[in-house]
């Protein structure tokens, strides 16, 4: 469940044997009073937290209290009270924050999936106002687990707070090159894009993103992340360009669809084309309202509907059977909306 710490706490001399702690009576937890909350503690844990509670109760601000929070934090990095009290002591005792940064670096390395440790780091950086090493540090952690949510959240905070946007696109590019399915990296790409640019204006940037997506999709077609990103970019683009669908995307899809190879028949490709067909057919339906006799429009709707229904059947029975109900639902939408044109 939690990552075991390699900064393990081995008490050479237990607190109760240390003369400098003899004036403190540890506060033990009221364990026996409640069957449900009976906790089997190890001796180290019991001892350290017994002394910690005692220190907390009298709000002792001392070097020994500071050292104690280190043992307590290492024994249970998820205990937010310990970190909180440690920060009070840092300030109160005027401790060297660079040293603290080194300490929390080690702790995060052994407990990278714990919220409190990242929060502590953030507090230290806020005090220091020195973000220089932070991007490198998160990269180090993300190198070991490229989806670590805490590390990403922290990185976004650093970038936003200190305006460190310059190299982010390169970093994201690298990550996507290494693993094109890294959804966190695609999300970060969108984070970068939407914070850096006004997406209701940037035709050129959005087009650059489309090229990027198509290249990545061409490399790996069955990749949810790149398709989702592509859809988002297109949404912005067609708002700028009055519903003009980027032609290169359609050409790309049609080439893939025409190969007839099963490998190319990704559910994401098919569903993308089906959604495009829907978008177009709805447009034509609108035009039909004012010109009900346009045979050409009706013929086009028919082509789109037939193609979509064909793909939806294939998705349900062959390419993505586990979500057959979803594809059947879309098919029923098509029949309901455009059924009269398919006869």
């Amino acid at each position, binding site marked *: *469940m*939690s990552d075991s710490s390699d900064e393990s706490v081995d008490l050479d001399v237990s607190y109760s044997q240390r003369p400098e702690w003899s004036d403190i009576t540890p*506060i033990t*937890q*009221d364990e026996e009073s*409640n*069957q*449900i*909350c*009976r*906790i*089997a*503690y*190890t001796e180290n*844990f019991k001892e350290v*937290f017994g002394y910690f*509670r005692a220190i907390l109760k009298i709000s002792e601000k001392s070097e020994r209290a500071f050292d104690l929070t280190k043992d307590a934090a290492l024994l*249970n990095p*998820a*205990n*937010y*009270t310990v970190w*909180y009290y440690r920060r009070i002591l840092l300030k109160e005792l005027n401790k060297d924050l660079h040293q603290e940064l080194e300490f929390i670096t080690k702790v995060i390395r052994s407990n990278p999936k714990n*919220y409190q440790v990242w*929060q502590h780091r953030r507090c230290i950086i806020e005090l220091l106002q020195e973000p220089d090493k932070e991007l490198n540090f998160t990269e180090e952690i993300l190198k070991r687990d490229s*989806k670590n*949510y805490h590390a*990403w*959240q922290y990185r*976004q905070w650093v970038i936003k707070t200190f305006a460190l946007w310059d190299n982010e696109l390169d970093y994201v590019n690298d990550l996507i090159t290494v693993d094109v*399915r*890294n*959804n*966190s990296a695609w*999300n970060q790409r*969108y*984070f970068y894009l*939407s*914070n850096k640019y006004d997406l209701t204006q940037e035709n050129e940037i959005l087009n650059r993103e489309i090229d990027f997506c198509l290249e990545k999709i061409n490399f790996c077609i069955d990749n*949810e*992340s790149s398709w*989702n*990103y592509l*859809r*988002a970019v297109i*949404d912005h683009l067609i708002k700028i360009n009055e519903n003009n669908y980027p032609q290169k995307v359609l050409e790309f899809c049609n080439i893939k669809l025409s190969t007839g190879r099963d490998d190319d028949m990704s559910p994401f490709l098919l*569903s993308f084309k089906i959604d495009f067909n829907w978008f177009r057919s709805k447009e034509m339906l609108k035009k039909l309202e004012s010109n009900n006799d346009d045979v050409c429009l009706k013929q086009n709707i028919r082509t789109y509907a037939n193609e979509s229904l064909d793909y939806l059947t294939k998705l349900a029975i062959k390419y993505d059977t*586990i*979500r*057959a*109900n*979803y594809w059947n*639902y879309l098919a029923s939408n098509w029949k309901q909306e455009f059924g009269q044109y398919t006869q």
Partner: protein
Amino acid sequence: MQSNQKELLIQKHVDFIVNYGKTHDQYEYEMSDYLRMSGLYWSVTFLDLVKSLDKLNKSEIVDYLKRNQHENGGFSPCDGHDPHLLYSLSAVQIAITYNVLNEINSEKLIEYISNLQQEDGSFSGDCWGEIDTRFSFCAVAALSLLNALDRINIEKAVTFVLSCMNFDGGFGCLPGTESHAGQIYCCVGFLSILNRLHMINVDLLGWWLAERQLPSGGLNGRPEKLQDVCYSWWVISSLKIIGKLEWINIEKLREYIISCQDDETGGFSDRPGNMPDPFHTLFAFAGLSLIKAFPDALKEVNPVFCMPQYVIDRVKVKPQLL
């Protein structure tokens, strides 16, 4: 039921939960002692769903609740810890399930929760300022159970949660953070309680959620992650709330959940063969209840609160379902 189907060993799971804390591994337990109040909620809810709530000592639990209400109104997870919104919700859920709200100081608790709302509408988890859409959910879930939603700024709360909606239709814990099934459950549940489900792009989100189902039948929490019983619950409860539960393969999900049952010790784990724990045991049963897998053995669960439906009916709370 098919004849080759693995049996659901309810009695073993009840024993597993009732004895948990007496027999478990020491290290794991002390590391998670900050979760104790939530652990109690998982156990209570599980036992109620399988009609065995009498296996726990009610007065001890009421006692435990009372002891862990801090003077500021919030609840701490265990003796010696600070209060937090997460455990305050767990405490309310336990109190409501046992119908003992009068035993805790509700007024103080309401005050504690509403004071955690920030200027931008978000909620911090405690007095130290961690912000997360999870806490928005905890706050409105607890307040709705306490019939006190009028004590916060609902419009601002909604605005903040919506600012965490992503381009893929999902939600993250802060604006810009990656969509994640656990956060989606919180945000969808939040919008359901506040009757704002129309703010969601249901088709986009529903598809994203349906994509979480893997060939094993289990569901993951993000693309390219492994399936997990707890994520299965968060995904299917969200799908249920937005009315798209049938988009996934229910039968395969049922098989997956059952495959995570530990036949020896009782309890469920995240994946077949792993160590069982109360957390995954509750979410396994909540999932089975939601998909009506064993309707005779299990009570109906409410997808928003993850509590028995009869309890939610009793307090007359009606979260929106599409």
